[in-house]
């Protein structure tokens, strides 16, 4: 209930979505983001920052479904993969520009989301989790075995570097691209959740029957959040394909969902600030600790269990506890 009211407040008192006093803070943050690649030339650090930007966008779009309408989707990496594959294939076979690929990826992912969402939302909240999981699994099987198109385990390789006015082929250029994308998604989300649509999302999450009684169609808003999130994930997938230059079936794997859930639970699902912090923490920490894949996943698993038990609202919960006392 409390979150619903906070959202409503922010649109009334803050016409542009931000309180005037926070402009100073945002200018500083923006300046730091712009200056970073001019100061830091270490390619490892830039790599990690790019990855962090990618996960900020990825996790924010995931939280649209999980945090704002409260449905547990397990198909987010599948939409990411669709975006990456569409882009990889279009760019290598038809040599289309990035903007065309981005739109194609987003539209296709949104269509898939509608096709998966309609049967999955039908029965119960559980069937949505299971249905999206089935879709994700089928997606990976198809990517693995549709050799004629995807080259299966050999991956789509040699994806050309994109051009937006200039060719983006250096780490700083990718850093700017990814950061811009993350910031755009953040701003979009901020405006969306403060709007009428965002309040409807939260109403559906808090109490579906009540929402319906005031004229909000729960299915419509769930589908909207799910397909918007899917389009966003596909967009992130497009950028990822250009950055890495290779797209493999493992990019669709379920372990991606695990990383996203860790981010959401560490940061605090349903809070923009929490999710952004969570994404940066979860992507950067294992990279700097330089640990192997198995240890990283083991660590994620243990962290997730501990957080669920001892920190139910993530880092965001800590902020609130402190501000109340």
């Amino acid at each position, binding site marked *: 209930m409390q979150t619903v009211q906070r959202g409503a407040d922010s649109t009334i008192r803050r016409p542009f979505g931000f309180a005037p006093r926070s402009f100073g803070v945002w200018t500083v943050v923006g300046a730091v983001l712009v200056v970073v690649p001019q100061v830091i030339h270490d390619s490892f650090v830039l790599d990690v920052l790019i990855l962090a930007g990618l996960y900020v966008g990825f996790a924010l779009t995931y939280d649209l479904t999980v945090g704002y309408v409260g449905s547990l989707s397990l198909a987010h990496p599948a939409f990411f993969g669709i975006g990456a594959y569409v882009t990889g294939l279009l760019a290598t076979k038809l040599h289309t520009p990035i903007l065309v690929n981005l739109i194609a990826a987003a539209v296709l992912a949104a269509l898939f989301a509608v096709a998966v969402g309609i049967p999955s939302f039908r029965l*119960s909240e559980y069937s949505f989790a299971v*249905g999206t999981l089935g879709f994700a699994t089928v997606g990976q*099987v198809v990517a693995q*075995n549709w050799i004629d198109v995807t080259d299966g385990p050999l991956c789509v390789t040699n994806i050309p570097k994109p051009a937006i006015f200039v060719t983006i082929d250096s780490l700083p250029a990718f850093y700017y691209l990814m950061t811009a994308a993350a910031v755009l998604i953040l701003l979009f989300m901020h405006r969306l959740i403060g709007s009428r649509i965002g309040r409807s999302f939260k109403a559906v999450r808090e109490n579906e029957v009540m929402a319906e009684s005031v004229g909000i169609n729960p299915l419509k808003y769930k589908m909207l959040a799910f397909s918007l999130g899917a389009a966003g994930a596909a967009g992130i997938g497009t950028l990822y394909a250009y950055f890495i230059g290779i797209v493999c079936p493992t990019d669709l794997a379920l*372990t991606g969902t695990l990383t996203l859930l860790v981010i959401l639970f560490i940061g605090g699902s349903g809070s923009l600030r929490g999710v952004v912090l969570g994404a940066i923490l979860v992507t950067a920490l294992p990279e700097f600790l330089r640990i192997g894949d*198995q240890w990283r996943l*083991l660590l994620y698993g243990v962290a997730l*269990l501990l957080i669920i038990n001892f920190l*139910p609202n993530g880092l965001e919960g800590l902020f609130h506890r402190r501000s109340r006392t």
Partner: protein
Amino acid sequence: MQLFIDQLVNGVTLGSVYALVAIGLSLIFGIVRLINFAHGEFFMLGAYILFFTFVQAQVPYGLAIVLCVVGMGLVGAIFYKIVYEPVMDRKWTAQLVATLAASVILTNAAILLFGGTQRGAPTSLSNQVLILGTLRVSYQRLLAVAVTLVAFFLLDLFITRTRIGRAMRAVSQNREVAQVVGINIRWIALVTFTVSASLAGLAAALIAPLQTISPTMGALLTLKAFAIVVIGGLGKVTGAVYAAFLVGLAESLATVYVSSEYKDAVAFLLMIAFLIWRPRGLFGQKVGI
């Protein structure tokens, strides 16, 4: 035609294993309303218990089966205590994520402890073949189907005849009223996890001799077992059994007549079809065990 009959036999064996795994999942869902993502890892751990007792310690196969079942029952109880009980009163999403975390911990701990290499635990029955006319079936498969049928029979007796079985059904039908008449939910949940993990252990003991054993063997199985549970109707144990055989048969027929690459997608395509046309599952009844 020969091929068709062979695939039917394969389908029935596959189906009986799926049934043992899916029943456990279905019991947990039906009684405590939890989707257990770590269920395939129960199967994986069971297979490793078989490997360590039967292959490494050279325990006789019959005793190894018993050790698998008892050992996994213990794992189920520990899993209940560490993973489920702390989140018992939380939202279902938190519970689901807890089991997902447990599944990742178990898989990766298994890779780190047992190594990523594939192992085998063939029994003397694996290579002996029963020949009936043109039909050839390995005795291990026959054993798997036979033991599965006995296990269903015993489980059915347990659920319908014993006091605790009736209490389990009561909880699945109405949790609040069950508590009002004095049923201890925690105790019932503990029994449910123990039983369903032992069933996964039994499935592993029976079928692992025909497969390779690896830390990731459970992942796809969990997902397929879910599809089966949805097809059978969420929380319906008998529905899950029929659905398991349906999926087993469909999968082995698809391997031959459609394509072997896409066989892993069959269960999910069936599930999606059911969600669209028969969202309440095979028998179209409400949730319950």
